[in-house]
């Protein structure tokens, strides 16, 4: 328990410190920090709209956060979540487009599988290159991002767009009719809560994918800490030499970690295509893949931490527009500054740790004279 508290403390300090810095910036441009804090809390956490949008934005952050975290547990840096979620989203839409008229449940299932497979492969290739040739995954995953953007953009533009549609998006797999989607899709929160007698506005994009995200958190936790494969994966991340000594295949686990990472990133496509737009919309991601790195960092690569961090980032995204509208001088970039500041503080944890230790006397005895 003490361990959990200690692990939560530093990210918490980083977040609080970042908000204080953000407050100073608000003061500088001439607005009230308290107003901004209030706008943040009310727009993100109150009302169906607030919670709905916060959790909807949090969903992709959960997936990419988990993706980066799993890779990191194996000692790998997956910077390619962005490309992985693009190919996954396209794959999900593609399945819907090439199987018109098939039973919706089947199409949806195949779509989800396609998204996971596409994301997995897109990350698995850099994994293979690392395992076989030692190619650094930071470089290969970034390159795969560019390839994904170009490839999928071209496919959408030349082959899957509606004739004459100026927007770079695919044909729809489902259409909204009278406020409810018709065609293969996964239900929105309104449809899920309706039978329970809870009214939730149908215009809110929060959908079943959020529950998939929660499930993913649990599955990742169980996989990493309760299964023998998770043990092997983490062992490789902690000490490849010791893992090899224990008969664990380093190459296999590198590929596996990257594949799982890509699968998780690919689930963003499910949220986007099957839960929200019902088509592939190029550039739908405002950098979810990269934010996932920040979310994983803040959540200390643990599913519980990732969940909390993702909700925070979701809340920030949700409130950004309100902050822009209801203040005189603060724009929605304030939220981006805040996210960046959080990352900086978390990354400087080493400096923090020294100071906080002197305050709280919770020390890690260093090894003396051995």
């Amino acid at each position, binding site marked *: 328990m003490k361990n959990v508290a200690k692990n939560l403390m530093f990210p918490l300090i980083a977040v609080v410190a970042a908000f204080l810095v953000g407050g100073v910036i608000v003061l500088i441009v001439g607005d009230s920090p308290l107003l901004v804090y209030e706008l943040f809390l009310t727009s993100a956490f109150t009302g169906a709209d607030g919670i709905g949008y916060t959790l909807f934005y949090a969903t992709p952050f959960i997936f990419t956060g988990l993706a980066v975290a799993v890779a990191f547990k194996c000692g790998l840096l997956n910077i390619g979540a962005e490309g992985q979620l693009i190919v996954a989203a396209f794959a999900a839409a593609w399945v819907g487009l090439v199987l018109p008229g098939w039973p919706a449940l089947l199409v949806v299932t195949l779509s989800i599988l396609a998204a996971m497979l596409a994301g997995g492969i897109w990350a698995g290739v850099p994994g293979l290159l690392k395992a076989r040739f030692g190619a650094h995954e930071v470089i290969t995953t970034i390159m795969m991002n560019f390839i994904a953007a170009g490839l999928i953009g071209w496919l959408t533009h030349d082959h899957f767009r509606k004739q004459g549609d100026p927007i770079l998006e695919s044909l729809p797999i489902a259409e909204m009719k009278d406020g409810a989607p018709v065609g293969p899709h996964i239900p929105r929160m309104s449809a899920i809560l309706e039978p329970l007698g809870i009214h939730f506005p149908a215009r809110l994009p929060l959908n079943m994918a959020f529950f998939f995200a929660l499930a993913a958190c649990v599955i990742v936790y169980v996989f990493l800490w309760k299964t023998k494969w998770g043990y092997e994966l983490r062992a490789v991340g902690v000490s490849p030499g010791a893992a090899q000594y*224990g008969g664990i295949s380093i190459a296999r686990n590198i590929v596996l970690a990257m594949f799982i990472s890509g699968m998780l990133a690919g689930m963003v496509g499910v949220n986007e295509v099957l839960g929200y737009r019902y088509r592939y919309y190029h550039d739908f991601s405002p950098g979810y893949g990269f934010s996932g790195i920040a979310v994983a960092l803040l959540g200390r690569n643990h599913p519980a931490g990732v969940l909390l961090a993702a909700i925070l980032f979701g809340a920030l995204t949700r409130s950004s527009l309100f902050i822009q509208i209801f203040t005189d001088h603060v724009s929605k970039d304030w939220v981006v500054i805040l996210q960046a500041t959080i990352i900086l503080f978390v990354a400087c944890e080493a400096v923090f740790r020294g100071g906080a230790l002197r305050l709280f006397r919770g020390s890690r005895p260093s090894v003396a004279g051995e």
Partner: protein
Amino acid sequence: MGEAPKNAVEMHGITKRFGEVLANDHIDLVVRDHSIHAIIGENGAGKSTVMNILYGFYTADEGEILIDGEPRALKSPRDAIALGLGMVHQHFMLVEPLTVTENIVLGAEPIAGLAIDYKRARARVRELSEQYGLKIDPNATVGDLSVGQQQRVEILKTLYRGARILILDEPTAVLTPGEVEEMFAILRGLRAQGKTIIIITHKLAEVLALSDNITVMRDGRVAGNLPTKEATVGGLARMMVGREVLLRVDKKEAHPSGAVLTVRDLSLRGREGAAILDKMSFEVRGGEILGIAGVEGNGQTELVEILAGLRKASGGQVLLEGAPIDALDPYQRRLRGVAHIPEDRHRRGMLLPFDLAANSILGVHRNAPMSGPVLLHGHVITTRADRLVRAYDVRPPVVALPARALSGGNQQKLIVAREFDIKPRLVLVAQPTRGVDIGATEFIHRKLVELRDEGAAILLVSAELDEVRSLSDRIIVIYEGRIAGEVDPRIASEEEIGIMMTGGRPAETGPAPVPALLPDDAPLSADSR
């Protein structure tokens, strides 16, 4: 008419804390001028810490230091060097591509105008080398020198800076027996020329042979200060550990059975075709301990890695009880009863951030009952870890602790516990007691002999000749990837083995059988060798 002997160094009440750890607890010691003073103790006793305080790396929280009778504040090594102190560390700080002279003047270069006056530096280095019998060529490239010679370069570095008080940290750790003798001669020579020498070591026999006075440290405190004349091996060990210690391994005759491990023509080519192992062939039988003696870097590390399945050989064959195992990975070898205690326990043997329970299953984690088809069986793992930790005296016996919280000796005991739990047929042990305190060393040695008596075959690789000689039933000496010879530890002398370790051949007529090991209670005066 004589002056009262002065004290080169006095340390009074030195206390140092690192966080919650009290590394030095009111240390009092006195080093006489023109003497060789040994500071001994187990790992973690605090001897390196107190010397690092003397040399200015750390500042003591309490206490005072007197150099030549004057109280001094030592805030950095620069202060220490200015006062005539010099330190030679266990891990050398040399730049291999540079020459001896360049290394020695690094940081204290003599200037002539704008250029470094290497001519003057070389002359001075040669002068010092001759004066103290160090036999080092100022123009030699450090990378080409032997380990013993590199160490002498480190000593020259301190002398060049005018050191009168030399501190040597584990000076004989990397030397062959012959080089150890040479080092002793040099140190005695330095003492004769007025230097004061402090050596930090855990090798009791050497301390008795070389030093004038001894300070014994235990758990951060001084357990005793005494002149070497009054010391015995058994007495010192008792002071170091606080209880009776069995120094010589108590073992019965070996009764070996059939061959368990057969190595045939094992070869390994390194980069550029260099032969790391050259057609090595040998056997280890059940119920015997085969020791491999040799200076590090002659292929032992690679040999053990090949036998453990961590590296592929270039040629040859490895048979376990007659069946070839070359294609098997470490996990499969462990299933067949091959245990491996690795020489680098941090890089190979442990997952340091994981807890003891997680470490206790490394290498057997896929076996029932530790795990099922998917899940790890946490309860089984914890219970088994508790049992192992208790049976092998791992301290503290808390399996939820991360492995890095344990001392070296306890980490090693955990590894031994884990490996022996598979009831091995063959045990590959490399450097089992490196960085391990005397108590744990004793324990591990005893366990190895127990396992041998139960019929296991044990291959022991160690750079500690004493360990090899006291544990092994047979010894083979490895040199440049080949077997230089096989000896019987009961009759071969240290000198004979030492010669083979450096590639020479012992004299045709072997030396008369001499008791090879030190009796426990032999008091040796400082100049008996």
